[in-house]
Protein backbone atom coordinates (compact mmCIF):
# COMPACT_ATOMS: atom_id res chain seq x y z
CA UNK A 1 0.00 0.00 0.00
CA UNK A 2 1.31 3.41 -0.86
CA UNK A 3 1.19 6.27 1.61
CA UNK A 4 -0.54 8.97 -0.29
CA UNK A 5 -2.02 11.01 2.48
CA UNK A 6 0.30 11.01 5.45
CA UNK A 7 -1.87 13.50 7.32
CA UNK A 8 -4.94 11.33 7.44
CA UNK A 9 -3.11 8.24 8.52
CA UNK A 10 -3.49 8.84 12.21
CA UNK A 11 -7.19 9.34 11.75
CA UNK A 12 -7.30 6.05 9.95
CA UNK A 13 -5.32 4.31 12.64
CA UNK A 14 -7.80 5.42 15.27
CA UNK A 15 -10.66 4.25 13.13
CA UNK A 16 -8.96 0.87 12.81
CA UNK A 17 -10.55 -0.15 16.08
CA UNK A 18 -13.99 -0.05 14.57
CA UNK A 19 -15.09 -3.58 13.65
CA UNK A 20 -15.74 -3.07 9.92
CA UNK A 21 -12.32 -1.53 9.42
CA UNK A 22 -10.76 -4.38 11.37
CA UNK A 23 -12.67 -6.89 9.30
CA UNK A 24 -11.32 -5.50 6.08
CA UNK A 25 -7.81 -5.37 7.53
CA UNK A 26 -8.05 -9.02 8.52
CA UNK A 27 -9.31 -9.91 5.07
CA UNK A 28 -6.44 -7.97 3.52
CA UNK A 29 -3.82 -9.67 5.66
CA UNK A 30 -5.34 -13.08 4.98
CA UNK A 31 -5.49 -12.62 1.22
CA UNK A 32 -1.97 -11.20 1.10
CA UNK A 33 -0.67 -14.18 3.08
CA UNK A 34 -2.58 -16.57 0.87
CA UNK A 35 -1.14 -14.97 -2.25
CA UNK A 36 2.35 -15.14 -0.75
CA UNK A 37 1.96 -18.84 -0.01
CA UNK A 38 0.65 -19.58 -3.48
CA UNK A 39 3.56 -17.70 -5.02
CA UNK A 40 5.95 -19.66 -2.80
CA UNK A 41 4.43 -22.97 -3.90
CA UNK A 42 4.56 -21.92 -7.55
CA UNK A 43 8.21 -20.93 -7.22
CA UNK A 44 9.11 -24.25 -5.59
CA UNK A 45 7.30 -26.36 -8.18
CA UNK A 46 8.63 -24.24 -11.00
CA UNK A 47 12.13 -24.86 -9.70
CA UNK A 48 11.59 -28.59 -9.52
CA UNK A 49 10.21 -28.83 -13.02
CA UNK A 50 13.02 -26.64 -14.36
CA UNK A 51 15.71 -28.82 -12.76
CA UNK A 52 14.22 -32.05 -14.09
CA UNK A 53 13.58 -30.65 -17.55
CA UNK A 54 17.05 -29.08 -17.68
CA UNK A 55 18.72 -32.33 -16.71
CA UNK A 56 16.77 -34.33 -19.29
CA UNK A 57 17.51 -31.77 -21.97
CA UNK A 58 21.22 -31.70 -21.18
CA UNK A 59 21.30 -35.48 -21.15
CA UNK A 60 19.55 -35.70 -24.52
CA UNK A 61 21.87 -33.09 -26.05
CA UNK A 62 25.12 -34.54 -24.73
CA UNK A 63 24.27 -38.13 -25.50
CA UNK A 64 25.42 -39.01 -28.99
CA UNK A 65 27.37 -35.78 -29.40
CA UNK A 66 29.77 -35.84 -26.48
CA UNK A 67 29.19 -39.17 -24.79
CA UNK A 68 28.59 -42.56 -26.31
CA UNK A 69 24.88 -43.42 -25.88
CA UNK A 70 25.87 -47.07 -25.51
CA UNK A 71 26.92 -46.27 -21.94
CA UNK A 72 24.57 -43.52 -20.87
CA UNK A 73 21.60 -43.96 -23.22
CA UNK A 74 19.41 -40.88 -23.64
CA UNK A 75 15.95 -39.78 -22.46
CA UNK A 76 14.28 -40.51 -25.78
CA UNK A 77 15.81 -44.01 -25.94
CA UNK A 78 14.92 -44.65 -22.31
CA UNK A 79 11.36 -43.60 -23.04
CA UNK A 80 11.21 -45.96 -26.01
CA UNK A 81 12.60 -48.77 -23.86
CA UNK A 82 10.06 -47.90 -21.17
CA UNK A 83 7.18 -48.24 -23.62
CA UNK A 84 8.58 -51.47 -24.93
CA UNK A 85 8.95 -52.91 -21.44
CA UNK A 86 5.50 -51.72 -20.53
CA UNK A 87 3.77 -53.37 -23.46
CA UNK A 88 5.95 -56.35 -24.20
CA UNK A 89 7.55 -57.41 -20.95
CA UNK A 90 4.99 -56.88 -18.23
CA UNK A 91 6.79 -53.95 -16.63
CA UNK A 92 3.84 -53.36 -14.34
CA UNK A 93 3.93 -56.91 -13.04
CA UNK A 94 7.62 -56.56 -12.20
CA UNK A 95 7.09 -53.15 -10.63
CA UNK A 96 4.22 -54.49 -8.57
CA UNK A 97 6.30 -57.43 -7.39
CA UNK A 98 9.13 -55.15 -6.25
CA UNK A 99 6.69 -52.75 -4.63
CA UNK A 100 5.14 -55.62 -2.71
CA UNK A 101 8.55 -56.81 -1.52
CA UNK A 102 9.45 -53.24 -0.55
CA UNK A 103 6.19 -52.62 1.31
CA UNK A 104 6.37 -56.00 2.97
CA UNK A 105 9.93 -55.38 4.13
CA UNK A 106 9.09 -51.84 5.17
CA UNK A 107 6.18 -52.86 7.39
CA UNK A 108 7.65 -56.07 8.70
CA UNK A 109 11.02 -54.43 9.45
CA UNK A 110 9.73 -51.23 11.00
CA UNK A 111 6.95 -52.78 13.07
CA UNK A 112 9.37 -55.36 14.48
CA UNK A 113 11.87 -52.56 15.17
CA UNK A 114 9.35 -50.32 16.95
CA UNK A 115 7.95 -53.13 19.08
CA UNK A 116 11.41 -54.35 19.98
CA UNK A 117 12.56 -50.81 20.79
CA UNK A 118 9.71 -50.42 23.27
CA UNK A 119 10.44 -53.82 24.82
CA UNK A 120 14.18 -53.25 25.15
CA UNK A 121 13.80 -49.77 26.65
CA UNK A 122 11.08 -50.86 29.08
CA UNK A 123 13.72 -52.27 31.38
CA UNK A 124 16.72 -50.03 31.90
CA UNK A 125 19.10 -52.85 32.60
CA UNK A 126 18.00 -54.79 29.52
CA UNK A 127 18.78 -51.76 27.39
CA UNK A 128 22.18 -51.18 28.99
CA UNK A 129 23.03 -54.85 28.51
CA UNK A 130 21.96 -55.26 24.92
CA UNK A 131 22.86 -51.88 23.46
CA UNK A 132 26.48 -52.67 22.48
CA UNK A 133 25.46 -56.10 21.20
CA UNK A 134 22.87 -54.59 18.90
CA UNK A 135 25.38 -51.99 17.76
CA UNK A 136 27.73 -54.86 16.83
CA UNK A 137 24.99 -56.53 14.79
CA UNK A 138 24.35 -53.21 13.11
CA UNK A 139 27.98 -53.23 12.03
CA UNK A 140 27.52 -56.31 9.84
CA UNK A 141 27.24 -55.23 6.19
CA UNK A 142 23.71 -56.27 5.38
CA UNK A 143 24.44 -56.84 1.72
CA UNK A 144 26.80 -59.62 2.79
CA UNK A 145 23.93 -61.37 4.57
CA UNK A 146 21.55 -61.18 1.64
CA UNK A 147 22.74 -64.38 -0.12
CA UNK A 148 22.25 -66.29 3.13
CA UNK A 149 18.67 -65.13 3.30
CA UNK A 150 18.07 -66.29 -0.25
CA UNK A 151 19.42 -69.65 0.85
CA UNK A 152 17.17 -69.77 3.88
CA UNK A 153 13.97 -68.36 2.40
CA UNK A 154 14.18 -69.37 -1.24
CA UNK A 155 14.19 -67.26 -4.38
CA UNK A 156 10.56 -66.17 -4.06
CA UNK A 157 9.21 -62.97 -2.55
CA UNK A 158 9.64 -64.12 1.07
CA UNK A 159 13.40 -63.77 0.93
CA UNK A 160 13.09 -60.30 -0.65
CA UNK A 161 10.75 -59.17 2.12
CA UNK A 162 13.08 -60.49 4.78
CA UNK A 163 16.11 -58.82 3.22
CA UNK A 164 14.25 -55.51 2.85
CA UNK A 165 13.11 -55.81 6.47
CA UNK A 166 16.70 -56.39 7.57
CA UNK A 167 17.79 -53.27 5.73
CA UNK A 168 15.04 -51.27 7.43
CA UNK A 169 15.21 -52.69 10.92
CA UNK A 170 18.22 -51.01 12.51
CA UNK A 171 17.54 -47.47 11.39
CA UNK A 172 14.01 -47.62 12.77
CA UNK A 173 15.12 -49.42 15.91
CA UNK A 174 17.90 -46.99 16.75
CA UNK A 175 15.77 -43.93 16.05
CA UNK A 176 12.85 -45.25 18.06
CA UNK A 177 15.13 -46.04 20.97
CA UNK A 178 16.56 -42.52 20.97
CA UNK A 179 13.06 -41.11 20.74
CA UNK A 180 11.87 -43.19 23.68
CA UNK A 181 14.90 -42.41 25.78
CA UNK A 182 14.63 -38.73 24.93
CA UNK A 183 11.27 -38.45 26.65
CA UNK A 184 11.67 -35.99 29.50
CA UNK A 185 11.76 -37.90 32.80
CA UNK A 186 9.94 -34.99 34.40
CA UNK A 187 7.11 -35.37 31.87
CA UNK A 188 6.75 -39.04 32.75
CA UNK A 189 6.86 -38.35 36.48
CA UNK A 190 4.23 -35.66 36.16
CA UNK A 191 1.98 -37.83 34.05
CA UNK A 192 2.15 -40.52 36.74
CA UNK A 193 1.47 -37.92 39.43
CA UNK A 194 -1.62 -36.88 37.50
CA UNK A 195 -2.86 -40.45 37.65
CA UNK A 196 -1.49 -42.02 34.47
CA UNK A 197 -0.93 -45.79 34.60
CA UNK A 198 1.88 -47.54 32.73
CA UNK A 199 -0.25 -47.95 29.65
CA UNK A 200 -1.18 -44.26 29.64
CA UNK A 201 2.44 -43.26 30.08
CA UNK A 202 3.41 -45.43 27.15
CA UNK A 203 0.63 -44.38 24.79
CA UNK A 204 0.09 -40.78 25.85
CA UNK A 205 3.56 -39.62 26.80
CA UNK A 206 6.36 -41.82 25.48
CA UNK A 207 4.84 -42.64 22.10
CA UNK A 208 3.93 -39.07 21.09
CA UNK A 209 7.26 -37.86 22.38
CA UNK A 210 9.11 -40.44 20.27
CA UNK A 211 6.83 -39.95 17.27
CA UNK A 212 8.99 -37.40 15.42
CA UNK A 213 11.95 -39.77 15.63
CA UNK A 214 9.90 -42.73 14.46
CA UNK A 215 8.44 -40.82 11.54
CA UNK A 216 11.84 -39.50 10.51
CA UNK A 217 13.13 -43.06 10.51
CA UNK A 218 10.17 -44.32 8.50
CA UNK A 219 10.79 -41.62 5.94
CA UNK A 220 14.48 -42.48 5.70
CA UNK A 221 13.88 -46.19 5.26
CA UNK A 222 11.45 -46.07 2.34
CA UNK A 223 14.29 -46.07 -0.19
CA UNK A 224 16.30 -48.36 2.10
CA UNK A 225 13.55 -50.96 1.94
CA UNK A 226 13.62 -50.75 -1.81
CA UNK A 227 17.41 -51.17 -1.84
CA UNK A 228 16.94 -54.34 0.20
CA UNK A 229 14.33 -55.71 -2.18
CA UNK A 230 16.48 -54.88 -5.22
CA UNK A 231 19.59 -56.42 -3.68
CA UNK A 232 17.59 -59.58 -3.14
CA UNK A 233 16.35 -59.53 -6.72
CA UNK A 234 19.85 -58.91 -8.04
CA UNK A 235 21.14 -61.97 -6.29
CA UNK A 236 18.43 -64.29 -7.40
CA UNK A 237 14.94 -63.78 -8.70
CA UNK A 238 12.73 -64.43 -11.66
CA UNK A 239 10.62 -61.34 -11.32
CA UNK A 240 10.86 -57.77 -10.09
CA UNK A 241 12.46 -54.56 -11.25
CA UNK A 242 15.82 -55.64 -9.84
CA UNK A 243 15.63 -58.76 -11.98
CA UNK A 244 14.64 -56.64 -14.99
CA UNK A 245 17.46 -54.17 -14.48
CA UNK A 246 20.12 -56.79 -13.93
CA UNK A 247 18.98 -58.72 -17.00
CA UNK A 248 19.01 -55.53 -19.07
CA UNK A 249 22.53 -54.75 -17.90
CA UNK A 250 23.67 -58.23 -18.82
CA UNK A 251 22.28 -57.71 -22.27
CA UNK A 252 24.04 -54.31 -22.47
CA UNK A 253 20.67 -52.67 -22.84
CA UNK A 254 21.35 -49.43 -20.96
CA UNK A 255 18.05 -47.99 -22.15
CA UNK A 256 16.07 -50.71 -20.47
CA UNK A 257 18.21 -50.52 -17.33
CA UNK A 258 17.55 -46.78 -17.06
CA UNK A 259 13.86 -47.31 -17.71
CA UNK A 260 13.75 -49.76 -14.80
CA UNK A 261 15.63 -47.36 -12.55
CA UNK A 262 13.22 -44.61 -13.52
CA UNK A 263 10.26 -46.75 -12.46
CA UNK A 264 12.03 -47.50 -9.15
CA UNK A 265 12.28 -43.78 -8.54
CA UNK A 266 8.60 -43.30 -9.24
CA UNK A 267 7.68 -46.00 -6.73
CA UNK A 268 9.83 -44.40 -4.02
CA UNK A 269 8.42 -40.95 -4.71
CA UNK A 270 4.89 -42.30 -4.43
CA UNK A 271 5.68 -44.04 -1.12
CA UNK A 272 7.28 -40.87 0.23
CA UNK A 273 4.19 -38.91 -0.65
CA UNK A 274 2.05 -41.36 1.30
CA UNK A 275 4.32 -41.10 4.35
CA UNK A 276 4.28 -37.30 4.17
CA UNK A 277 0.52 -37.38 4.03
CA UNK A 278 0.33 -39.61 7.11
CA UNK A 279 2.98 -37.62 8.94
CA UNK A 280 1.50 -34.13 8.69
CA UNK A 281 -1.44 -34.44 11.10
CA UNK A 282 0.71 -36.42 13.53
CA UNK A 283 3.32 -33.67 13.82
CA UNK A 284 1.03 -30.67 13.71
CA UNK A 285 1.98 -29.83 17.30
CA UNK A 286 5.55 -29.05 16.44
CA UNK A 287 6.71 -25.48 15.85
CA UNK A 288 7.82 -25.07 12.27
CA UNK A 289 11.41 -24.01 12.15
CA UNK A 290 12.54 -21.69 9.43
CA UNK A 291 16.27 -21.95 9.29
CA UNK A 292 16.76 -20.75 5.74
CA UNK A 293 15.99 -17.17 4.83
CA UNK A 294 12.84 -16.89 2.77
CA UNK A 295 13.35 -14.49 -0.03
CA UNK A 296 10.52 -12.14 0.75
CA UNK A 297 8.92 -9.84 -1.81
Amino acid sequence: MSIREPDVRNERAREADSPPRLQSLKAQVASRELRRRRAETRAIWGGRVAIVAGTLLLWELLSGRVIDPFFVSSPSRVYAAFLQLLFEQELLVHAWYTTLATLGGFFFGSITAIVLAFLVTSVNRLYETTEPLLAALYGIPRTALAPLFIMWFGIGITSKIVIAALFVFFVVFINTVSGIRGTGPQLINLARLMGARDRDVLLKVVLPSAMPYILTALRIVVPTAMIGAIVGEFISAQRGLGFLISRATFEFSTHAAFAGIFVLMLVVVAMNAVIGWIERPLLRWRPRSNVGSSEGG
Partner: protein
Amino acid sequence: MIELDNVFRLFLPKRRAVDVFVALEDVSLRVAEGEFVSLVGPSGCGKSTILNLIAGFLQPTEGTVRMRGQPVVTLNRATGYVTQDDTLFPWRTTRANVEFALEVRGVATAARRDVVERLLAQVGLQGFENHYPHELSGGMRKRAAIVRTLAYEPEILLMDEPFGALDAQTKLLLQDQLLRIWEEQRRTVLFVTHDLVEAIALSDRVLVMSRAPGRILAEIAVDIPRPRDVFHIHSNPAFPGLYERVWEHLSKELGAARA
Protein backbone atom coordinates in the same frame (compact mmCIF):
# COMPACT_ATOMS: atom_id res chain seq x y z
CA MET B 1 -0.50 -32.38 56.71
CA ILE B 2 3.00 -32.40 55.25
CA GLU B 3 5.85 -33.09 57.61
CA LEU B 4 9.54 -33.29 56.90
CA ASP B 5 11.57 -34.54 59.86
CA ASN B 6 15.35 -34.20 59.90
CA VAL B 7 15.57 -34.77 56.18
CA PHE B 8 18.95 -35.11 54.52
CA ARG B 9 19.30 -35.46 50.80
CA LEU B 10 22.65 -36.16 49.19
CA PHE B 11 23.48 -36.39 45.50
CA LEU B 12 26.26 -38.11 43.62
CA PRO B 13 26.25 -35.67 40.75
CA LYS B 14 28.16 -37.61 38.09
CA ARG B 15 28.46 -41.29 37.56
CA ARG B 16 32.08 -41.50 38.56
CA ALA B 17 32.21 -38.57 40.95
CA VAL B 18 33.49 -39.28 44.41
CA ASP B 19 32.45 -36.13 46.23
CA VAL B 20 28.89 -36.35 47.41
CA PHE B 21 26.87 -33.17 47.26
CA VAL B 22 24.72 -32.32 50.25
CA ALA B 23 21.57 -30.64 48.94
CA LEU B 24 19.53 -30.72 52.15
CA GLU B 25 20.90 -30.87 55.64
CA ASP B 26 18.59 -31.65 58.51
CA VAL B 27 15.48 -30.00 57.14
CA SER B 28 12.33 -30.13 59.19
CA LEU B 29 9.17 -28.35 58.19
CA ARG B 30 5.44 -28.57 58.52
CA VAL B 31 2.66 -27.37 56.35
CA ALA B 32 -0.79 -27.50 57.90
CA GLU B 33 -4.02 -28.34 56.07
CA GLY B 34 -5.21 -25.38 54.01
CA GLU B 35 -2.07 -23.41 54.68
CA PHE B 36 -0.19 -21.39 52.04
CA VAL B 37 3.54 -21.58 52.75
CA SER B 38 6.34 -20.04 50.71
CA LEU B 39 9.90 -21.20 50.48
CA VAL B 40 12.58 -18.65 49.66
CA GLY B 41 16.33 -19.09 49.46
CA PRO B 42 19.38 -18.63 47.27
CA SER B 43 19.33 -20.59 44.04
CA GLY B 44 20.70 -24.10 44.37
CA CYS B 45 19.76 -24.31 48.05
CA GLY B 46 17.45 -27.27 47.59
CA LYS B 47 14.00 -25.71 47.20
CA SER B 48 13.06 -27.83 44.21
CA THR B 49 14.54 -30.85 45.96
CA ILE B 50 12.10 -30.36 48.82
CA LEU B 51 9.16 -30.28 46.41
CA ASN B 52 10.49 -33.36 44.61
CA LEU B 53 10.66 -35.18 47.94
CA ILE B 54 7.07 -34.29 48.78
CA ALA B 55 5.86 -35.32 45.32
CA GLY B 56 7.71 -38.60 45.78
CA PHE B 57 9.94 -38.06 42.74
CA LEU B 58 12.89 -38.42 45.12
CA GLN B 59 13.41 -40.27 48.36
CA PRO B 60 15.23 -38.71 51.31
CA THR B 61 18.69 -40.05 52.02
CA GLU B 62 17.82 -39.87 55.69
CA GLY B 63 14.85 -38.65 57.68
CA THR B 64 11.19 -38.92 56.82
CA VAL B 65 8.71 -37.17 54.61
CA ARG B 66 5.16 -37.71 55.73
CA MET B 67 1.80 -36.81 54.38
CA ARG B 68 -1.12 -37.06 56.82
CA GLY B 69 1.16 -39.17 58.97
CA GLN B 70 1.93 -41.67 56.19
CA PRO B 71 5.52 -41.81 54.93
CA VAL B 72 5.86 -40.86 51.28
CA VAL B 73 7.59 -43.85 49.70
CA THR B 74 6.33 -43.69 46.16
CA LEU B 75 4.73 -41.09 43.90
CA ASN B 76 2.48 -38.96 46.06
CA ARG B 77 -0.70 -38.82 44.02
CA ALA B 78 -2.33 -36.42 46.48
CA THR B 79 -0.08 -33.69 45.18
CA GLY B 80 -0.34 -31.48 42.15
CA TYR B 81 2.99 -30.18 40.96
CA VAL B 82 3.62 -27.12 38.83
CA THR B 83 7.27 -27.63 38.07
CA GLN B 84 9.92 -25.03 37.48
CA ASP B 85 10.44 -26.09 33.86
CA ASP B 86 7.86 -25.93 31.16
CA THR B 87 6.18 -29.30 31.34
CA LEU B 88 3.03 -29.01 29.30
CA PHE B 89 2.78 -31.86 26.82
CA PRO B 90 3.89 -30.17 23.59
CA TRP B 91 1.81 -32.54 21.45
CA ARG B 92 -1.42 -31.66 23.24
CA THR B 93 -3.49 -28.55 22.78
CA THR B 94 -4.26 -26.35 25.78
CA ARG B 95 -7.55 -28.14 26.27
CA ALA B 96 -6.05 -31.60 25.91
CA ASN B 97 -3.30 -30.71 28.37
CA VAL B 98 -5.77 -29.52 30.98
CA GLU B 99 -7.88 -32.63 30.36
CA PHE B 100 -5.01 -35.05 30.79
CA ALA B 101 -5.51 -35.96 34.44
CA LEU B 102 -9.26 -36.41 34.02
CA GLU B 103 -8.75 -38.42 30.86
CA VAL B 104 -6.43 -40.96 32.48
CA ARG B 105 -8.84 -41.17 35.39
CA GLY B 106 -11.57 -42.19 32.99
CA VAL B 107 -13.81 -39.15 33.45
CA ALA B 108 -16.39 -38.98 30.66
CA THR B 109 -15.71 -36.59 27.80
CA ALA B 110 -18.65 -34.29 28.48
CA ALA B 111 -17.85 -33.92 32.17
CA ARG B 112 -14.23 -33.27 31.26
CA ARG B 113 -15.22 -30.52 28.86
CA ASP B 114 -17.22 -28.74 31.55
CA VAL B 115 -14.39 -28.70 34.06
CA VAL B 116 -11.88 -27.60 31.47
CA GLU B 117 -14.06 -24.82 30.05
CA ARG B 118 -14.61 -23.42 33.52
CA LEU B 119 -10.93 -23.55 34.47
CA LEU B 120 -9.73 -22.03 31.22
CA ALA B 121 -12.23 -19.22 31.59
CA GLN B 122 -11.07 -18.65 35.15
CA VAL B 123 -7.56 -17.82 33.97
CA GLY B 124 -8.52 -16.07 30.76
CA LEU B 125 -7.48 -18.75 28.30
CA GLN B 126 -10.74 -18.90 26.35
CA GLY B 127 -10.04 -18.73 22.66
CA PHE B 128 -6.76 -20.59 23.10
CA GLU B 129 -8.21 -24.04 23.76
CA ASN B 130 -6.97 -25.43 20.48
CA HIS B 131 -3.53 -23.87 20.54
CA TYR B 132 -0.45 -25.98 21.04
CA PRO B 133 1.97 -24.90 23.80
CA HIS B 134 4.44 -23.40 21.34
CA GLU B 135 1.67 -21.13 20.09
CA LEU B 136 1.09 -19.66 23.57
CA SER B 137 2.99 -16.93 25.38
CA GLY B 138 5.08 -17.82 28.42
CA GLY B 139 2.42 -16.47 30.76
CA MET B 140 -0.31 -18.45 29.04
CA ARG B 141 1.75 -21.62 29.27
CA LYS B 142 2.17 -21.08 32.99
CA ARG B 143 -1.54 -20.50 33.40
CA ALA B 144 -2.29 -23.64 31.42
CA ALA B 145 0.17 -25.61 33.56
CA ILE B 146 -1.48 -24.32 36.71
CA VAL B 147 -5.03 -25.16 35.67
CA ARG B 148 -3.88 -28.53 34.36
CA THR B 149 -2.82 -29.20 37.93
CA LEU B 150 -5.99 -27.76 39.45
CA ALA B 151 -8.17 -29.84 37.13
CA TYR B 152 -7.95 -33.01 39.20
CA GLU B 153 -8.23 -31.18 42.52
CA PRO B 154 -5.14 -32.46 44.29
CA GLU B 155 -5.10 -31.97 48.04
CA ILE B 156 -1.70 -30.31 47.99
CA LEU B 157 -0.33 -27.92 45.43
CA LEU B 158 3.41 -27.73 44.92
CA MET B 159 4.44 -24.73 42.87
CA ASP B 160 8.04 -24.16 41.86
CA GLU B 161 8.71 -20.56 40.85
CA PRO B 162 5.60 -20.62 38.69
CA PHE B 163 5.83 -16.92 37.88
CA GLY B 164 9.60 -16.67 37.86
CA ALA B 165 10.20 -15.85 34.23
CA LEU B 166 7.23 -13.56 33.68
CA ASP B 167 7.05 -9.82 33.23
CA ALA B 168 5.95 -7.78 36.25
CA GLN B 169 2.37 -7.09 35.11
CA THR B 170 1.57 -10.64 34.05
CA LYS B 171 3.02 -11.83 37.30
CA LEU B 172 0.74 -9.57 39.35
CA LEU B 173 -2.31 -10.69 37.41
CA LEU B 174 -1.47 -14.35 37.86
CA GLN B 175 -0.75 -13.89 41.56
CA ASP B 176 -4.14 -12.29 41.90
CA GLN B 177 -5.83 -15.14 40.02
CA LEU B 178 -4.02 -17.72 42.10
CA LEU B 179 -5.01 -16.02 45.35
CA ARG B 180 -8.64 -15.87 44.34
CA ILE B 181 -8.69 -19.52 43.36
CA TRP B 182 -6.94 -20.41 46.58
CA GLU B 183 -9.24 -18.34 48.77
CA GLU B 184 -12.18 -20.14 47.19
CA GLN B 185 -10.81 -23.64 47.81
CA ARG B 186 -8.23 -23.31 50.59
CA ARG B 187 -5.95 -26.04 49.35
CA THR B 188 -2.64 -26.65 50.99
CA VAL B 189 0.07 -24.88 48.98
CA LEU B 190 3.84 -25.02 49.14
CA PHE B 191 5.14 -22.29 46.91
CA VAL B 192 8.77 -21.73 45.90
CA THR B 193 9.81 -18.27 44.80
CA HIS B 194 12.72 -15.87 44.45
CA ASP B 195 10.48 -12.92 44.89
CA LEU B 196 10.09 -11.79 48.50
CA VAL B 197 7.16 -9.50 47.74
CA GLU B 198 5.37 -12.41 46.10
CA ALA B 199 6.12 -14.68 49.05
CA ILE B 200 4.69 -12.15 51.51
CA ALA B 201 1.72 -11.23 49.36
CA LEU B 202 0.56 -14.81 48.95
CA SER B 203 1.53 -16.77 52.04
CA ASP B 204 0.53 -17.46 55.60
CA ARG B 205 4.14 -18.25 56.40
CA VAL B 206 7.47 -17.69 54.67
CA LEU B 207 10.32 -20.15 55.23
CA VAL B 208 13.80 -18.82 54.54
CA MET B 209 16.48 -21.32 53.54
CA SER B 210 20.24 -21.12 53.80
CA ARG B 211 22.50 -21.49 50.81
CA ALA B 212 23.62 -25.05 50.06
CA PRO B 213 23.59 -27.29 51.96
CA GLY B 214 20.01 -26.22 52.46
CA ARG B 215 18.61 -25.74 55.94
CA ILE B 216 15.56 -23.85 57.16
CA LEU B 217 16.88 -20.65 58.75
CA ALA B 218 13.80 -18.80 59.76
CA GLU B 219 10.07 -18.86 59.67
CA ILE B 220 8.10 -15.63 59.35
CA ALA B 221 4.36 -15.59 59.88
CA VAL B 222 2.57 -13.16 57.58
CA ASP B 223 -0.23 -11.63 59.60
CA ILE B 224 -1.84 -9.65 56.82
CA PRO B 225 -5.57 -10.39 56.79
CA ARG B 226 -7.26 -12.01 53.83
CA PRO B 227 -8.59 -11.51 51.26
CA ARG B 228 -5.47 -9.70 50.17
CA ASP B 229 -4.87 -7.24 47.41
CA VAL B 230 -1.65 -8.19 45.63
CA PHE B 231 -1.68 -4.97 43.62
CA HIS B 232 -1.43 -2.80 46.74
CA ILE B 233 0.37 -5.12 49.12
CA HIS B 234 3.17 -2.53 49.46
CA SER B 235 0.85 -0.03 51.10
CA ASN B 236 -0.23 -2.48 53.79
CA PRO B 237 1.17 -1.16 57.10
CA ALA B 238 2.52 -4.59 58.06
CA PHE B 239 4.37 -5.08 54.78
CA PRO B 240 7.63 -3.13 55.30
CA GLY B 241 8.37 -4.82 58.61
CA LEU B 242 7.74 -8.30 57.16
CA TYR B 243 9.86 -7.60 54.13
CA GLU B 244 12.67 -6.36 56.36
CA ARG B 245 12.58 -9.50 58.48
CA VAL B 246 12.70 -11.87 55.51
CA TRP B 247 15.40 -9.83 53.81
CA GLU B 248 17.50 -9.72 56.96
CA HIS B 249 17.80 -13.51 56.99
CA LEU B 250 18.19 -13.91 53.27
CA SER B 251 20.73 -11.13 52.80
CA LYS B 252 23.09 -12.82 55.22
CA GLU B 253 23.01 -15.92 53.06
CA LEU B 254 23.58 -13.97 49.89
CA GLY B 255 26.41 -12.04 51.53
CA ALA B 256 27.97 -15.27 52.70
CA ALA B 257 27.72 -16.63 49.19
CA ARG B 258 29.63 -13.66 47.86
CA ALA B 259 32.49 -13.97 50.37
